[in-house]
């Protein structure tokens, strides 16, 4: 291993740490929020916002790209079924904390948990497109 190699690994680790820390410092989403919502975005456009504290429910998302099923339960949300090729969205598991995200890239489905008033602002770092 050359010295340049060690530098590369070092710099990349610092970048990784930076990406971990910066959103946490700038976003106030760690605050204890009474209500949590899941914002569902499909193909860049807002699809639905669901309260996570309500009754359990399953959300069917059918688009020309495919089919996804989200399950809301006990203050969290998980992708339980999808007919995408890689099933990565299902592998991402159940999320329950504000800032948690599930992505299904092949179907362009994006789920993010936001705290507060229905997530009108997106409540976190960089609410450019919602």
């Amino acid at each position, binding site marked *: 291993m050359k010295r340049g190699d060690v530098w590369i690994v070092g710099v990349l*680790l610092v970048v990784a740490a930076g990406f971990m820390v910066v959103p946490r410092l700038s976003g106030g989403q760690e605050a204890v929020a009474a209500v949590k919502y899941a914002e569902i975005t499909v193909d860049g456009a807002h699809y639905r916002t669901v309260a996570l504290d309500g009754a359990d429910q399953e959300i069917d998302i059918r688009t020309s790209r495919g089919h996804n099923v989200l399950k809301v339960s006990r203050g969290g949300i998980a992708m339980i079924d999808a007919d995408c090729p890689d099933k990565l969205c299902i592998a991402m598991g159940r999320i329950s904390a504000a800032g948690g995200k599930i992505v299904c890239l092949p179907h362009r489905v994006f789920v993010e948990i936001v705290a507060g008033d229905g997530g009108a602002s997106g409540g976190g770092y960089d609410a450019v497109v919602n």
Partner: protein
Amino acid sequence: MMQWSTDAMLLRKTMVISVFASIAVVLGIVESLIPFAVAIPGAKLGLGNIMVLTCLYFFSARDSLALIMLKTVMTAFILGSFSTFLFSLMGALGSFLAMLAMLRLGRGRFGLLGVSVMGGAMHNAGQLLAAAIVLGTTKIFYYFPFLLVSGIVTGIFVGMAAGHLIRALEQIDWFRRREWASS
């Protein structure tokens, strides 16, 4: 006579690159059978990068680009993952450019390990960039650190594998002579 020997060399080189590409495709299929992504969804071993790195080491940027295009298109055909083709392509191109710059402009400052690690990191960056464009949100970059760390680990592994392969290939006279470099 001279013309003939150049043609034979070119033919041989084209053949070797095709073999490299087919190995890269097979490695991609093998990789898709390994449930590695369970720990970090979206993380990849990047075994195909072994062939890209080896190709960059021996041949020109153009030859390596040909290998990458072949590998990406063929893998998409075989695995039927056209919905993610754009992401694979952006990742592969990002990784290719980073590795090319480090090998050609690095003046020997970087070993195969560093080049491979950087290639892995840029692969992930390219994929996330494509994803950000498609989804219309930069929020998915929250995922970058996880991919970056896993990319460092797999990059070291891939770099070691490519090092072994290059040393083995240099036992072959044709690879050692590098006739293509002078023509």
